[in-house]
């Protein structure tokens, strides 16, 4: 993607900037020029106002990606999900900070700010939204369960196994 094109999409990718039809209050992301919900589209002309999504939502559906898109090789396998936002729009995003076995439909998530990809070693770094588990009070889910001795032992065993082969 060119630097200019990404830059134009910055408000969307950084801040979930969409818009809202002030005639019928439907929210759109990405923003639309006219409101397809209003029966006569012309009613919405000039009535679309900027609207920033809260970043809260839930998993509508998801898939586990094994064949990485370019730039995502380090994160395979990763979860790509459709997120039903609180304000309505459905959007696609990666789910991070949770092991993929734990992701489920209906799970509450919240937008996180992450690196999306890099244009090689010398190119620009693209940032934007991904999603991580949320909890009731609007904050994020705990980082994870407390570090257990068993988990540490498992990690150690994996490394030893690698060293032997």
């Amino acid at each position, binding site marked *: 993607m060119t630097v200019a094109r990404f830059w134009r999409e*910055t408000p969307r990718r950084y801040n979930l900037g969409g818009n809202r039809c002030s005639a019928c209050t439907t929210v759109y992301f990405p923003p639309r020029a006219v409101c397809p919900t209003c029966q006569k589209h012309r009613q919405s002309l000039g009535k679309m106002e900027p609207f920033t999504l809260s970043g809260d939502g839930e998993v509508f559906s998801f898939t586990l990606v094994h064949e990485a898109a370019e730039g995502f090789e*380090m994160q395979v396998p990763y979860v790509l999900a459709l997120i039903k936002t609180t304000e309505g729009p459905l959007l696609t995003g990666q789910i991070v900070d949770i092991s993929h076995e734990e992701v489920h439909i209906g799970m509450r998530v919240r937008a996180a700010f992450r*690196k999306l990809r890099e244009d090689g070693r010398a190119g620009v*770094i693209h940032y934007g939204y991904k999603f991580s588990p949320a909890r009731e009070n609007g904050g994020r889910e705990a*980082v994870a369960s407390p570090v257990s001795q068993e988990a540490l032992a498992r*990690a150690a065993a*994996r*490394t030893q196994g690698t060293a032997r082969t």
Partner: protein
Amino acid sequence: MEQKVGIVSYGAYVPRYRITPQEIGQVWGTDGTAMGKGLNVVRKSVPSPDEDTITISTEALRIALTRGKINPHDIGAIYVGSESHPYAVKPTATVVAQAVGATPYLTAADFEFACKAGTAAIQTCMGMVASRMITYGVAIGADTSQGAPGDALEYSASAGGAALVIGRENLIAEINATESFTTDTPDFWRREGQRYPSHGGRFTGEPAYFRHVGECGRRMMERAQTEPKDYQHVVFHQPNGKFPQRIGKSLGFSEAQMKYGLVTPWIGNTYSGAALIGLANVLDHAKGGDRVLVVGYGSGAGSDAFDVTVTDRIESYDRNHGRQVQEFLDGGVPLSYAMYAKYRGKIHLGGS
């Protein structure tokens, strides 16, 4: 200081992965348990492949803005202190400013001074806020630092950061005064283009960390006309878990006073983030009226100290939004060295 300035809000962020000194040691044929004990580091944080100083700074500041119910457009300055800015040329602060919705009517810059760039940012914001140049100034300290594989630094260098919003009104903590101590001391450095930093080995202790933190802490108390017993909490820069304990003891502080300010044993050395995350943990636990001494340190070398008094407003301030520091200290997902090496880019892929 005539015009009261202080902390209006704060937030901290530490990535979710952890690795232990034992796990690192067994790869390099070193006794990791002894290493961890020597450094007083139980585990250190590791960033995901999609995290860096920009994402950590943004997450920390977003928490701070929500907790303090601060309109991003009231922010007049954002300064990000780090020694791991993702770009050599192109500011971290502009991305952070855009990502929190503070652009375009503000000034922004990246600060560098090894591990004390974040405390230098606090001082700059204090001056600008006190002189009424700006309403709110944001000071961030964040890093995703690395030690060379097998080097002693690899056992402690970790990732994390914290953001402080500095202002004049609605203060949850007043900064009564600040003090600095600076000399040319080559204890730790990284030349342009070098992947990992170099250090002066044992030289990093006595003439560097201990002299600067000690002198700065003592001068701060002289100026504030305080003694160690006047403080409920003390926070030092913490490249490992041992240095801050030693300097604290020699300045006359007890384990109890150091308890919340010491976070490195559970997340590692977050460099520019270290003193600020320690302060965030203190604020997570503080009561109105508590007095806090903060002494940062950056190699090269210098120390910045702050004499802070927590206000009663802390009781009604929303500390529960986002994660408190204790969650980062307790939680985390352990990584094997292999996964850690992959995540930290220590494995060279073919073709590049």
